[in-house]
């Protein structure tokens, strides 16, 4: 079974609104990473947060990590139509990409 589980499975919002996606996992991790995938193409790395970090920002993205609850959230502010994609969280148990496990993803649709 997969380590990460994103929630919701699908999300539809209007352009300009904020989008929040959540990820829960089951075992201890070294790091958690968020990826975006457009139309079944390759994955684009968005942000990495380590287990000793609580929050990270990158442009319009904000990621939080709560290791006590084994959960993470990805916030996209002021969404754009170009943000329409599937978003995946992936957990790593070491520093070298071993045991890297993806969740099933959240499909985000941003309507113009």
């Amino acid at each position, binding site marked *: 079974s997969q380590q990460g589980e994103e929630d919701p499975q699908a999300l539809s919002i209007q352009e300009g609104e904020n989008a929040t996606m959540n990820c829960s996992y089951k075992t201890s991790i070294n790091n958690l990473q968020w990826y975006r995938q457009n139309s079944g193409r390759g994955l684009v790395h968005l942000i990495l947060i380590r287990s000793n970090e609580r929050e990270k920002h990158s442009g319009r993205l904000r990621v939080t990590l709560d290791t006590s609850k084994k959960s993470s959230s990805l916030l996209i502010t002021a969404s754009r139509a170009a943000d329409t994609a599937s978003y995946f969280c992936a957990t790593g148990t070491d520093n070298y990409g071993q045991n890297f496990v993806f*969740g099933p993803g959240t499909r985000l649709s941003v309507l113009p």
Partner: protein
Amino acid sequence: DAGVTQSPTHLIKTRGQQVTLRCSPISGHKSVSWYQQVLGQGPQFIFQYYEKEERGRGNFPDRFSARQFPNYSSELNVNALLLGDSALYLCASSTYNEQFFGPGTRLTVL
């Protein structure tokens, strides 16, 4: 700098055939991982190679094998193809923590 490259982009095979997929990592990256992504699901880990040695293997049958070459490029081989092997096969290279993915190879098994 060039990102991770994969070839071919698309591939159509019939059941029972064998397929070889290729991946070139980002320059300087010594680790390559392979993932299978079935439509509508997240990627599933198949293999990881570091410095030409296998460092991890996912829950895939022995029909799946891989290797890494001295220049750190890698090949994924799948024998005796089944319809269920139809998927997007993704390669990722990493140096530390972050994994960078290639565009994938779309394999269709008829």
